[in-house]
């Protein structure tokens, strides 16, 4: 969340960064959710992710998230300790824009992939602050979204 333009080029303007942290096996920002939190109709290029009151951390900014609170020297971003927060979100994938069948032998993954439209409505709440995204969501806000039916690792072969 930014007070100005969005993106990594504007790190110093970021004031909130919500994520579930990297786990002890280095899995990046993934957390188990109820099975019905995700619905997929791959043939029609649709999927949804709906979660309520998920416990996350607000690391303040991406730099502190990736450095686990150390900050960085350039641009100067001081270290910040994470605070607890809760987020709720409804992400919808829909509208097939492109398709690709991929077999990547260097990364050991293969599958069918769809480029789609997507929207998100979400909120966050923590001590002293809450956020509510604009609703209804703007479909034009989607930069890129992908759905895939894939196999990787030992399932690749």
């Amino acid at each position: 969340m930014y007070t100005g333009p969005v993106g990594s080029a504007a790190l110093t303007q970021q004031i909130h960064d919500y994520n579930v942290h990297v786990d002890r096996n280095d899995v990046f920002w993934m957390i188990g959710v109820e099975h019905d939190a995700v619905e997929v109709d791959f043939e029609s290029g649709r999927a949804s992710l709906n979660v309520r009151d998920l416990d996350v951390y607000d690391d303040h900014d991406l730099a502190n998230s990736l450095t686990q609170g150390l900050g960085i020297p350039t641009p100067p971003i001081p270290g910040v300790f994470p605070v607890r927060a809760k987020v709720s979100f409804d992400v919808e994938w829909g509208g097939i824009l492109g398709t690709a069948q991929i077999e990547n032998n260097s990364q050991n993954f293969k599958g069918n992939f769809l480029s789609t439209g997507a929207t998100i409505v979400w909120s966050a709440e923590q001590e002293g602050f809450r956020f509510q995204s604009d609703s209804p969501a703007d479909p034009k806000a989607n930069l890129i979204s992908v759905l895939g039916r894939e196999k990787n690792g030992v399932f690749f072969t």
Partner: protein
Amino acid sequence: MLDESYNPWKKFQEKWLSRRSLIRGAAGAALGAGLLRPKFTYASDEDDSEDGACLNPKAIPGGVFALKPFGIFVHHNPLNPAAPLANISDPSQITDFDGFVGLTHIRGGGTGTDTMTGARSQLAFQADMGFSKGKFIGVDGRVHKATFAFV
């Protein structure tokens, strides 16, 4: 005279790794790993793991160096709006995985509220989110079925 062996980014990484270990160590001593993040606990009815077993997937071996030039490696391949779909890197964060994945890269706006003062402000956001739903081989070597959100 320059000390050619001095590398500020290497020093930064060493400090980061040290801090990372420190945080993990302190968390384990104080409240257990749960202080750092919730555990994977949602098992499928079809899951063949033992009741109450935690679902611990494994990270993909690949990924990217984030926050250049600091060189912090993350096991994640961000979507690139400029790249053709056929050229994407593995969008899954979990390896030994067979199932559905979704990723999205959305920007938008909303309203932030200071709950102490009631002051409101317009804020912009970028959401890099997604999911994985399917079967995977966990760190325990067993096949599990589960659903994960990428947050």
